[in-house]
Each structure stands twice: as structure tokens, then as C-alpha cells.
């Protein structure tokens, strides 16, 4: 057996024995990067009591004023959906328009099984798909768990808008960059509540630090059965819903 052939045989043997096992060990979950890190400091979250929402739309209006969101009724950082579930199993979902007269249908409509309002906003996922897909690193997660957009480097490719499973992003017609809910970052960092939480007349919206032991949010999380939207996607949303109908999940 000549030298070259011997070398190749030994090399292949090594590849399939020790070397390969070493490679497999490296990708085993145990030694792969530990994702569950202990978080210290602020880690912001949000609670929504579905059965308290009266669908008045004050939050949508306040959000537009506070964050200078364009007035057109299809740019929203937060919005409220009206669910109408009928007895034949069909469900209609509409985004309400604040200030408009309440829809009179349904008062005596016997085919309606259940109807309610669901406030929605950016879920500020702990594992956000929008951050993963951004090709220029313009969207990122802050130390306290808020996903922000850097409008100086965003190229407006809309990839993050497609990637968001909750439809929480839109392309701003003013800056031509992606825009989304920031939990009113300029307010919360200065000790104020987000504008939507501030104006909600029925306390359907709760904001707070998830690491705090005693706060309205941690009490809300302890005392209610909590759901998140689309839990199967493993985005780990930080907007928690109480009293959520099975139809919404």
C-alpha cells in the first residue's frame, strides 16, 4: 500500500470516528449556547384583559398622537379588533375605527354566538423574528426587552414586515422606514406609562417590568389564566392576554 492511499484511508477513518463524534458533540443541545440567561434589570412586558376592553378606541387615538403615526386608518402601532363569532362557526374580524358610530347589527342578531374586542400591538417578542431577518441590523432588541427600529440605517426593504407573525409593523410613508410600537420607549424610560395604557378607561391594558415582584403586571400574571398569541411559533411574546377566546389563538 503506498503512502497516499494509506493517508486517505486513515483520514477517512478519523473522520468517521473520533473527529465526527467530536463534531456531533458540538451541536448537541447541551453544549450549544445556553439561551435561558438570567435577566437582571428591567424586562418590560404588557398585559391585556380582553373582557375589560370596551372597544372605545381611545388607545388607538392616543398612540397616533403620541407617536405621530400617520392619520390614515391603515397605519397603526396598536389597534383593536372586533371579533364576531357566529353559531355556524364562522368568525368575522374587523379593526374598529375610533370615533365611528357603533355598529348596530348584532343587537338582536340571534346568529351571533359571541362577540368581543381584542386589543393588539407589537408583542415585543423575547425571540423576535423581525430582528433575525433584518439584513442591515437596523432593528434590534434593547437591554430591557423592547424591539426598536433604527430609522437611520433601515433601508425600507419590508422584510421585517413580512416576517412579523402578528402584523405589528408597517412602512412609514413619512420616513419610508419600518415603524412599530416601541412601548412608548421615550415615556417608559422617563417614568411615564405608555400612552395607550395611560388613556385606557377600563384598565384593560397593563404595563410593567416583568422582573418586579409586586406590580400591577406581575399580579395580573399571577391571578389570571394567561395566553399569548401564536405560542407555537416560539417567538416568546411579552404581551400577555387574560380571558382570551380560543378563536383568537
Amino acid at each position, binding site marked *: 500500500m503506498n503512502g497516499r492511499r494509506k493517508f486517505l484511508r486513515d483520514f477517512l477513518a478519523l473522520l468517521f470516528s473520533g473527529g465526527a463524534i467530536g463534531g456531533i458533540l458540538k451541536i448537541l443541545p447541551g453544549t450549544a449556547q445556553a439561551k435561558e440567561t438570567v435577566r437582571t434589570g428591567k424586562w418590560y412586558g404588557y398585559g391585556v384583559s380582553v373582557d375589560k376592553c370596551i372597544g372605545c378606541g381611545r388607545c388607538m387615538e392616543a398612540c397616533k398622537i403620541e407617536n405621530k403615526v400617520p392619520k390614515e386608518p391603515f397605519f397603526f402601532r396598536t389597534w383593536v379588533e372586533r371579533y364576531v363569532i357566529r353559531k355556524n362557526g364562522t368568525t368575522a374580524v374587523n379593526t374598529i375605527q375610533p370615533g365611528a358610530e*357603533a*355598529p348596530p347589527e348584532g343587537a338582536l342578531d340571534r346568529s351571533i354566538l359571541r362577540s368581543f374586542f381584542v386589543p393588539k400591538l407589537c408583542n415585543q417578542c423575547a425571540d423576535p423574528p423581525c430582528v433575525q431577518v433584518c439584513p442591515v441590523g437596523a432593528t*434590534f432588541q434593547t437591554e430591557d426587552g423592547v424591539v426598536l427600529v433604527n*430609522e437611520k440605517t433601515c433601508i425600507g426593504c419590508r422584510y421585517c414586515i413580512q416576517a412579523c407573525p402578528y402584523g405589528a409593523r408597517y412602512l412609514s410613508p413619512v420616513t419610508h422606514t419600518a415603524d412599530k410600537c416601541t412601548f412608548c420607549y*421615550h415615556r417608559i424610560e422617563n417614568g411615564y406609562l405608555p400612552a395607550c395604557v395611560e*388613556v385606557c378607561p377600563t384598565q384593560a391594558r397593563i404595563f410593567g417590568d416583568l422582573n418586579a415582584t409586586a406590580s400591577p403586571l406581575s399580579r395580573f400574571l399571577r391571578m389570571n389564566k394567561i395566553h399569548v398569541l401564536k405560542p407555537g411559533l416560539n417567538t416568546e411574546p411579552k404581551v400577555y392576554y387574560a380571558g382570551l377566546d380560543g378563536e383568537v389563538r
Partner: protein
Amino acid sequence: MLKFPQKIPDSLARLLVVFLVLTVALAVVWVLIPRDMKNVKVQWAEAEKREKARPLQYAGFRACEDCHGEIHNKKKAGYHRDLACETCHGPAKAHTEDPDKVKPVIPFTRAFCPQCHAYNPSRPRGFPQINPVAHNPLKACVSCHNPHDPKPPTTPKECSACHGEIARTMAVSHHVQLACTQCHEAPPQHKITPRTAKPSKPQNREFCGKCHGKDAREKLAKSAPKINIDEHGEKYVCWQCHYPHSPEVEQ
């Protein structure tokens, strides 16, 4: 002299020149690009700073009390105690900075209050709602209700004033003839503070059996459907299968 370069083939020498020019150009570009354009962490820190520095529009729930203490105290005792002032009066940060020049809105019109209080079947039950078409047309809401301490102008006499949905359901059911008090005992205080004094609810099968039992003696129950309450319905209580406000109305 120059023996060594002559040994390199001509083609390789040209390639080396091209390679050198490229390397120098790349190095120059790398030096010329500012550091923060290459480091995403720096960009993020700047974006965070920009985001934090944006101006506020809403002054927050603590701002109003200092000057408007009287109204604040009045509101604190009423049903609107959990509402922020800015829910109705709009963003007031500018007003806190220059109280004389900028005044927040005072919504007087009839279109405003129904945003929350117009009847909408999707609203949670028990939330006070009116029909804006039928409810004192053309009269401003504030002429009867003080928005800082809202109360119904008179204490409701009929249960249907608040429990409209149940009343409407009952109206087309077989239980239409029954008064609410047939099954519920409402303490008088319930009309004033509905949540602190709650009316009673039937607790057991025997209650329904008074009318629907095999040998019911209640006068009202003459034509009521009768069952043997010991056998019917196994271990369940009646209202686990029958909705008392609309019993079997569709079958």
C-alpha cells in the same frame, strides 16, 4: 541589477500590481468609513438615545392633580376614578408647560361620550351603555350627568335598565311571565352600588323543582313542563343544561 524582478514572469508581475492596487484601495476605504458605520452596537446605542429623547405629548396621570385638585378629588370618589384626565381631555403636556397659552379640549358634544357608552353587543356585559338615538335625543350628556362624577340621574327601578340583554332574551322566552324577583332577591343597595350588594341566585335543583318537579304545587307552574327531579339530569344542576333566562326557546 534588477535581476530578481526579471526572473518573475511578466503575467505574474501584472497580477501582483493589480493585487497591490486592490489591497491599498480596500485599506483606504476601510480607514475612510467612520467607525460607527461599521459597528452595529454603536448604531443601536444611538438609536436608543434618539428614541428616548423624543418629545412627550401626554403628561401622565400625576400631572393634573397639582393645579386641579378639587376636580381630581371629586373624580377620585366617582365611577370615573380610574380614568386618566387625558382620556377625555386629550394630550396635555403642552398645557403643563404653558397653562395659559395651550388649553386641553373639553368635549361637550353628544358624539363624544357614546364612544364608550353607546350600546355595542361586543362590549362586556354590565358596562353602562345607552342607545344614542333613543336616549334623550339632542340633549347634551353633561346637562344630566357630571362627567367628573357620573351617576344615572335617577336610581333605576326596573332591572332591565342595566340588565337589558337578559331582559330582551327573557321577553321572547317561555319565562316571559316571570318577574326577576321570582328567582333573584335583590337588596335595595344593589341599585346604588351594584357590585358591592349582589342579588341572590338559585342554588339547587329543588329551586327549579318548585315549578318543574313532578308534583309541583306552585300556582304559576300549571302549564310548566314537569320532570322527576330525582331521575332527570343525573348529577347536574338544572342550569348546566338549561339557560334559565331562555329555556329551550329554540327547540
